[in-house]
């Protein structure tokens, strides 16, 4: 009880201090008359005694002794605030054995953790004509890069007889449409068939607390396989294949927040979207499927339109988290994918072959 009383007194003093500051801020010359009653009020408050004062103070100590002391647990303490020694002594007190230091968990690697040897889209793709000099250069570079992809395609075909890079575009587009449709519908069980485990948390996190209206209107160009790579994970027989498909399509996207207010996009305006989507398959697995794995955002792509909401730019962080939360799902995915690709570029450049990407475990 005495601790509580002292705490109350401290709280009263702390709460009275802002009043003192207000009195100090007043200009002394003109408002000197007003300052004195404020000071009187402050003094009156400071002189005030606590409400639990007893009428017979000489027996305060004996009244305290009447209480049987018990150790009240602090129900608001956090686990990270407790030190190791404190936790150890508590477990000893309660007779609790420490947990096992090792954890035996089975690993199941069903997809890789990123893109290995990411495709670098040529600048101005989809806009420049073949007749111009830069367009012609792009064609030449394209022919140079094609040989490695051809070898990868041959490797994929050795595992999957039906695979054809010409026919895979249509199949990939179907997977793409299904994935985005189930993302908009928040169908978290069906989306697993079309999205790899690495891509799943990013998509579902974008969808949280939002309503998304997404529609695939038409394809402006037929989808085309632009890149293919095969790598093994841990053992030689455990092969994963990644294929990058270029989509140029017309889409409609509208994102509403938790309260049904439009955050981004529109249900009326359509947008032309140029995307480089990476699909992955565990080709060693007999029942493996091609699933949407990641997106490649080229550096030359124009910046996305920001959300109309007003947000505060936090200067400490590299990018403001408010902007991420305010933006649309595509922008979020775009930004996160951009970060991932930036992180992987230094990894990809020193080692060309035998690259083992980080595992999504």
């Amino acid at each position: 009880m005495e601790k509580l009383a002292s705490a109350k007194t401290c709280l009263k003093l702390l709460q009275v201090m802002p009043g003192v500051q207000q009195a100090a801020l007043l200009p002394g010359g003109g408002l000197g008359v007003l300052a004195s009653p404020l000071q009187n009020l402050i003094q009156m408050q400071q002189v005030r005694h606590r409400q639990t004062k007893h009428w017979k103070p000489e027996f305060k100590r004996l009244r305290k002794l009447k209480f049987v002391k018990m150790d009240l647990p602090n129900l608001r303490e956090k686990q990270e605030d407790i030190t190791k020694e404190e936790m150890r002594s508590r477990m000893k007190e309660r007779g609790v054995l420490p947990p096992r230091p090792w954890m035996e968990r089975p690993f199941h690697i069903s997809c890789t953790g990123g893109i290995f040897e990411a495709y670098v889209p040529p600048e101005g793709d989809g806009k420049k004509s073949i007749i111009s000099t830069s367009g012609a250069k792009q064609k030449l570079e394209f022919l140079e890069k094609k040989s490695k992809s051809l070898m990868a395609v041959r490797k994929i075909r050795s595992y999957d007889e039906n695979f054809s890079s010409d026919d895979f575009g249509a199949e990939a587009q179907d997977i793409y449409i299904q994935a985005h449709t189930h993302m908009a519908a928040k169908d978290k069980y069906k989306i697993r068939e079309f999205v790899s485990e690495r891509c799943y948390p990013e998509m579902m996190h974008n969808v949280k607390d939002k309503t998304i209206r997404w529609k695939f209107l038409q394809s402006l160009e037929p989808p085309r396989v632009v890149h293919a790579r095969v790598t093994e994970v841990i053992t030689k027989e455990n092969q994963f294949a990644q294929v990058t498909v270029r989509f140029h399509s017309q889409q409609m996207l509208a994102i509403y927040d938790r309260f049904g207010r439009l955050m981004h996009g529109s249900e009326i305006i359509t947008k032309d979207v140029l995307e480089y989507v990476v699909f992955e398959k565990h080709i060693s697995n007999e029942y493996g499927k091609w699933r949407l794995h990641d997106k490649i955002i080229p550096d030359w792509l124009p910046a996305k339109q920001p959300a109309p909401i007003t947000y505060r730019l936090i200067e400490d962080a590299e990018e403001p988290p408010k902007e991420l939360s305010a933006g649309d799902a595509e922008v979020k995915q775009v930004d996160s994918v951009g970060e991932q690709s930036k992180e992987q570029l230094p990894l990809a450049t020193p080692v060309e072959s035998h690259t083992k990407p980080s595992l999504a475990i």
Partner: protein
Amino acid sequence: MHKVIRQMSQLRLQAPQGAALLRSADSSSISPAISPVSPPALQSKSLHTAASAGMLCAKWNKYNYGPRKWLEYNKTVHPPQETDEEPRNAYVCHMRSNIKYSPDKMWYIAAFVRGMSVDEALKQLNFVLKKGATDVKETILEAQQIAVERHNVEYKSNLWIAESFVGKGRVFKGVRRHARGRFGKVEYKHCHYFVRLEEGEPPQHYYQEPQTPEQQYESWMEQMRSRKIINSL
């Protein structure tokens, strides 16, 4: 549990009797009276530690999640609105559980800030001379931050306190010694504080609007005309 409490109180009450005997024998001198008091205190402290640990272990090991339904309102996703409709105001539910404070005293603070704008409430809580005001202020600040970061609220000053109420938390029972071998119960109470912030301006009258004299007269007349007169025709 009650048997343990009685045994503890009996053990402790025997020691003061011994001290009283010593005081009656040596009423003139003061120093001998002080020294016999400390050994019983040590014994009582060592005694109640094991007992209180035994009592509290059962309490600690029970599942105590606190209220969980209030924060579920934050997961409601409303359907999209048409462009011509009035935009729906955002709201955020937040709570702080198991505050070491009496719910009866916390109610005054919760009722005080009800219906205020957030900025006004934070200003006023600086001058509320109650221990629970600090927790209420921190909870409102947390709710304000969550609203801006996660629930698409544009301006954090454009919020008002739509709901503010208190729930009872855990109560630990203690013991206080009384005369003649009796004991009293001490309750160490906890409370939960719940708040819901809504976007927009606070309403002019949060509770029932005060009636003008004409409105009071009309309602009185309506009541008079509609009353039942017993023992009439």
